[in-house]
């Protein structure tokens, strides 16, 4: 049969060649697009809606001439250290990323990250450096500013007012009144000090660190050397042991996950405990007014304090253009107020311009956290002022996990516990 179609001049080889060229073009296009944009990794810092909002802030970035745009990518917390170290080992880290508090320090030490000194100078020049006092200092190292802070996961003491009233307890102001209130709460079957000490949870570690700092102690000496076995820490552990003996700390807490603790807060079993300032947002709407942040407790030495984690936004040396990375970080930090305006972050803001927003100032719990708790907060590097790479292993490692579980289990030889901790930490450092 004779074809009625007009034969074109494109033969089989021509067709295949054209298809190959088209395929090559389409496959090259995304690569080109990728190379011409900054990769921005963002951990999931808030509830549903956080990712979309953070991505919106990224997408709203209009780079100046000669600067690169940014592509947002959300990164889950599971195996976060593995994610970043694998990327660093293979040279595939993004241009910019948010991350865990102590992540920048080993990376800066290894030359994987770019220091933020130049960026801070640009922010100074643009009038955007309004970081709250003390926070930026936590990022300073011998190699420069490791990263810029973008939020502050501080741990403050929450109480459930109705439970204290039911127990006939006063709001505690110091360790002794805390013990008194805790005993009264234990008498009505409530938990006076929330802990989640499962091996996969860090809440109990935060709480124990907070009390150690509260008493002027910590894991380190001012020069950064390990100093677990000191009088202040021993006093703290003795106090916590008293909490265990008086059933203010729940023995079940040894296996509690964060979810278990949250559930106990919700169902009215827990009356007091350290949590982040946005904890009330996780509670049922009808109960939220029942939760209140109290003022920092005074230790028996009359000192106050807590632990905080200054969450960084970091710039990696794998960026296609460092100036573009810096320009994007300036844009991002200048626009993250939306995250707090929409109630999508439990952590505190680190910039004065955000802290002064009506949505923050109208929340008495957050105001108290900023005004009373943040000034007395320290990192787990305390009593050292400088942070360093080994803090990752201190924060997430097995040494501190076993340490807090032993406290919950009621081990009473505080000096021995601290000595064992110091040996275990020395090994991982």
């Amino acid at each position, binding site marked *: 049969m004779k074809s009625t179609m007009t034969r074109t001049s494109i033969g089989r080889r021509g067709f295949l060649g054209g298809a190959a060229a088209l395929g090559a073009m389409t496959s090259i296009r995304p690569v080109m697009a990728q190379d011409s944009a900054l990769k921005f990794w963002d951990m999931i810092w808030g509830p549903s809606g956080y990712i979309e909002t953070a991505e919106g802030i990224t997408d709203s970035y209009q780079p100046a001439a000669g600067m690169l745009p940014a592509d947002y990518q959300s990164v889950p917390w599971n195996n976060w250290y*593995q994610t970043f170290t694998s990327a*660093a080992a293979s040279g595939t880290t993004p241009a910019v990323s948010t991350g865990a508090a102590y992540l920048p320090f*080993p990376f800066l030490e290894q030359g994987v990250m770019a220091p933020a000194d130049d960026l801070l100078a640009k922010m100074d020049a643009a009038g955007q450096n309004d970081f709250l006092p003390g926070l930026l200092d936590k990022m300073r190292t011998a190699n420069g500013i490791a990263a810029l802070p973008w939020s502050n996961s501080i741990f403050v003491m929450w109480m459930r007012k109705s439970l204290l009233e039911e127990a006939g307890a006063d709001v505690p102001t110091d360790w002794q009144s805390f013990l008194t209130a805790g005993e009264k709460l234990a008498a009505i079957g409530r938990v006076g000090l929330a802990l989640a000490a499962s091996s996969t949870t860090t809440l109990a570690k935060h709480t124990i660190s907070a009390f150690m700092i509260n008493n002027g102690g910590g894991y380190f000496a001012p020069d950064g050397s390990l100093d677990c076995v000191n009088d202040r820490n021993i006093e703290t552990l003795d106090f916590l042991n008293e909490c265990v003996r008086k059933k203010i700390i729940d023995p*079940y*807490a*040894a296996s509690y996950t964060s979810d*278990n603790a949250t559930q106990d807060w919700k169902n009215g079993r827990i009356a007091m405990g350290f949590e982040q300032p946005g904890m009330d947002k996780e509670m049922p709407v009808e109960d939220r007014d029942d939760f209140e942040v109290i003022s920092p407790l005074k230790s028996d030495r009359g000192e106050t304090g807590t632990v905080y984690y200054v969450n960084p936004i970091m710039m990696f040396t794998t960026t296609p253009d460092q100036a573009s990375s810096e320009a994007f970080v300036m844009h991002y930090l200048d626009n993250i107020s939306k995250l707090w305006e929409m109630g999508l972050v439990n952590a505190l803001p680190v910039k004065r311009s955000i802290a002064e927003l009506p949505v923050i100032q109208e929340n008495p719990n957050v105001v108290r956290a900023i005004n009373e708790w943040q000034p007395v907060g320290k990192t787990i590097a305390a009593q050292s002022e400088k942070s360093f790479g080994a803090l990752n292993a201190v924060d997430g*490692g097995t040494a501190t*996990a076993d340490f807090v579980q032993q406290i919950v289990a009621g081990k009473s030889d505080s000096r021995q516990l601290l000595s064992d901790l110091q040996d275990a930490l020395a090994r991982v450092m």
Partner: protein
Amino acid sequence: MTLGTAKIDKKGTRFGNTALSATQARRLTLAGLALPSILLMVAINGYPILFAAFQSMYDGSLLNWGEFVGFGNYAEVFRDPAFWRAVRFTVIFTMAGVLGSWAVGFGLALLMLKPFPGRALFRVLLLLPWIVPIVVSSMSWNWLLATPYSLLPQAVEAIGLGRVMFLADPTMAMITVCVFKVWISYPFMLMIMGGALQAIDKNVMEAAEVDGCSGLRRLRHMILPMTARTTYIAWILMVFFSVNDFPTIYLLTGGGPLSSTTTLIVMAYRTVFQDFLPGYGVAISFIVTIALVALSIFLLRQIRKSSLQ
């Protein structure tokens, strides 16, 4: 027929001046065909193993290999009391996993031999622990056990046994994790042993019954020997599944409390990814691998022995 320079006839093949028998030629051809796959497997498995072997001899971090310490990490592992505690619990967990799941699975498989109403549905229900994702199972068990207001602690208290901390007490946590392992694993044994039981000739069993052989004697002298080969294979597999079982433990207890439920594989993970000591952690993994290879050789010999019998 010719194949390149080789001549093939019914007697054999000639490669150049070398004459090969038909069997040799066939083997050579098969080896040639298998070679790409073997090379691929070596590349995929060999490289990471070699990489890890080197890594276990350094004392650095995940970012920096650090200094070469030879077998220093291995020596340190053997001196570490935590390692021996992990060995102890690994043995307990594996024994419980293998024997417990086999006993339950085999027992249920025996029950399922005789028809009863709803047997098909019952069989599907019995497989549920295996089918449900481990993340869901561990969350369910956590919900059942973790807090004083959880279902099981409440039930135990209601019958007068006091407050039992299934996950917070080290000894109870060890028992709970082992029971969880049996619960997760028995459907596998049910499937394997069910198949082995189906393969036994019914006439033999009926003849034994007619001859007055009791159920227990039939089990001991007929069913167990007849299913011994399958049993050993199932045990070998379950030994591997148990020793290498990370999620069952990690999702339920994370290896705690007080490291009481830390097996070697959990210890290796925590050492590498929580303490950031990859050399030390990988050394633990290699020790586990060597132990497993030795154990599998022993069990394979047992299989051969049971086959001969």
